[in-house]
């Protein structure tokens, strides 16, 4: 329902604003152009996107994600002190983080939801500190190789679409770091 409001609002605003600024004809032209551009965009990224999901499936089957998950477990226990004793929850959290790092989005969500279900058992209906941290970590992107955006850059004729990686890592690390810090800080001062 949210998207309905947003979409209808965008269309209504464009018509009103277009008429007010005398750009009615441009809006009319754009209304028939956008749909075609969407299909063009999808087609231009289709090949590389499918190749990457293929490579990621190879990565998943080779057990790389499990390995990474075991490596991350000790760090994550510090981040979730309230859940550190719940072995199954911590396993799900590690697997969720490693799937997110490797860009295995379709694997990360079910794992994250499994972790969330276990964390939520202790406080039904209310988001505990651990659950807030888990959700905030999942709203931040920690994907090591952002393939979709690199694919878009390649489709636009970029010679080295991955040259943004260091910048992406920097920005991701800062964003996740601040998200976690915000959780730890809010956990102390939040009154509800």
């Amino acid at each position, binding site marked *: 329902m949210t*998207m309905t409001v947003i*979409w209808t609002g965008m269309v209504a605003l*464009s*018509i009103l604003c*277009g008429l007010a*600024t005398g750009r009615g004809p441009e*809006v009319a*032209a*754009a209304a028939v152009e*956008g*749909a075609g*551009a*969407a299909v063009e965009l999808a087609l231009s990224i289709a090949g590389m*996107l*499918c*190749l990457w*999901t*293929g*490579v990621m*499936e*190879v*990565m998943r089957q080779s057990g790389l994600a499990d390995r990474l998950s075991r490596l991350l477990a000790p760090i994550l226990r510090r981040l979730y002190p309230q859940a550190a004793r719940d072995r199954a929850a911590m396993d799900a959290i590690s697997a969720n983080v490693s799937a997110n790092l490797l860009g295995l989005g*379709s694997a990360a969500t079910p794992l*994250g939801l499994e972790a969330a*279900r276990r964390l939520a058992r202790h406080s*039904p*209906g*209310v*988001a505990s500190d651990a659950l*807030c941290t888990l*959700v*905030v970590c*999942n709203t*931040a*992107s920690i994907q090591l190789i*952002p393939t*979709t*955006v*690199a694919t*878009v*850059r390649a*489709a*636009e*004729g970029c010679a*080295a679409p991955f*040259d*943004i*990686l*260091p*910048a*992406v890592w*920097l*920005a991701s690390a800062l*964003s996740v770091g601040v*998200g976690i810090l*915000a*959780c730890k800080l*809010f956990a102390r001062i*939040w009154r*509800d």
Partner: protein
Amino acid sequence: MDLFFTMLVPLTIGVIAIYATFRRVDVYSALVQGAGSGLETLTRIVPSLIGLMTAVYMLRASGALELLAGALAPVMDRLGLPPELLPLMLVRPISGSAALGVGAELISTYGPDSQLGRTAAVMLGSTETTFYTIAVYFGAVKITRTRYAVPAALCADLTGFLAAAWAVRVCFG
């Protein structure tokens, strides 16, 4: 360093394929199976991409985005963010397909190797669809009191946007 990033794709694919072969994975069938699921993902996002890009194109043609960007330009400038990126920042937490559409449009208009194109790409690569994720997680475990999850997630998003602009300045001068 340039050669490293140019060779990153073939190297990554090669290393993963060799590692998986040693782990006795049927690499080729896994690859084909995964590529098929990529196609499914793509067909799943195309309908929403069509709807959202129509609205985004109309909004851009109407001049509404320029008006909004113009009004917020002083604030954006103060934060070191190009005002052209405002539409991307507004849709990013709400819809992944819309953000991809807006981002692709920016990258195509300004060029993938321009400062703006790079910043748009880094923003896309270092943030997530925050509200969608929150809805999925709290919906799945029936949480009604979300406490500080939304403000904390938005802190992370804002940091991601600011850091993207800063990181592109640092990495590409």
